[in-house]
């Protein structure tokens, strides 16, 4: 139990997928203009990332390794991720049309979120057992959601702040993101 908690803490805060590993920056900058869309995007990504971690582990251990086809790993992982994303899109469209409108193009673009491919590859590289891989994926996605939410809150305030003309919009966003990354460096050594 302690091990799992440490794993979660490590993936959410210490090795945060966005601010420490610098994966998944596109939705981080793209969807962080409003907190409510940020939360929804985070939840969709969490679902996809957890499912992708679990199914990639299963494919890796039950298909690729026994048949000696590990050289096809990236191909198979991308296939799985694409299927999970498509499925998520259908579910969101069915259950929450408003959210579907808001997320728009970013929902299918979860497929190209490098964090979604990166996390299963990392867990494979570290040879984690199934539950650990699942938690690794879930924790990373939770960290992604957390940072997305924090950053969206910051940007909502930035929109009202007086920013020097040259920095309005994306530039001040990038500066804020780097400061947030610096702040997250403070978690190093926590685990």
């Amino acid at each position, binding site marked *: 139990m302690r091990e799992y908690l440490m794993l979660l803490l490590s993936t959410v805060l210490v090795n945060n997928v966005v601010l420490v590993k610098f994966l998944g920056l596109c939705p981080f900058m793209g969807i962080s203009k409003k907190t409510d869309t940020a939360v929804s995007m985070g939840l969709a990504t969490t679902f996809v990332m957890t499912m992708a971690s679990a199914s990639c582990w299963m494919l890796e251990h039950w298909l690729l390794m026994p048949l000696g*086809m590990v050289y096809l790993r990236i191909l*198979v992982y991308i296939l799985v991720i694409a299927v999970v994303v498509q499925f998520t899109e259908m579910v969101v469209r069915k259950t929450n049309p408003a959210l579907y409108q808001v997320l728009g193009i970013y929902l299918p673009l979860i497929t190209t979120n490098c964090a979604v491919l990166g996390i299963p590859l990392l867990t494979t590289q570290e040879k984690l057992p199934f539950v650990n891989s699942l938690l690794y994926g879930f924790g990373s996605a939770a960290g992604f959601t957390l940072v997305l939410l924090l950053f969206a809150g910051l940007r909502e305030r930035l929109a009202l702040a007086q920013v020097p003309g040259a920095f309005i919009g994306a530039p001040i966003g990038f500066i804020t993101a780097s400061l947030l990354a610096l702040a997250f460096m403070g978690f190093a050594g926590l685990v």
Partner: protein
Amino acid sequence: MFFAVVSLTILGSAMGLFLGYAARRLEVEGNPLVEEIQAILPGSQCGQCGFPGCAGAAQALADRSAPITLCPPGGRAVVQALALKLGVEANLSDVKDNVPMIAEVKEEICIGCTRCFKVCPTDAIMGAAQQMHSVFREACTACGKCEEVCPTESIKLQPIPVTLHAWYWHKPVIQPMQAVSA
């Protein structure tokens, strides 16, 4: 090699079948009329109709809660196409076929009051108090706000002069009315 081909084929087909099944189960009954109306509208998402974009306008048109003359950039041709699609009478009398416009300052009567300068949403007007104003063509969106506040009517929206850079295709010619009723 053999195993790789076979297993990947099976994997891909299984996932494809799963997605196909899920698509059937989770199908959303969209209104096909909305999509057809959206195809008629210009799709420039200008928001001049008061809806948040052409999709919103198409939804309202399909619900019959908006007049078919709601789209200024579409002009008469769009009104006619909408009338045909929705099966209603088209009243073309108050629809103008607008050409692209731009604000222009009549220099001899501009008094330099800076009112237009203050209301311009795109900062397209240059000038200072008691100085003649002029318009940056690249920035002007022809919103018409300056025209409303000008005390001397010196700033007016004018059709963009035709040059090599500003040339555009003419809007589709309106078909005779019997084509609509047919």
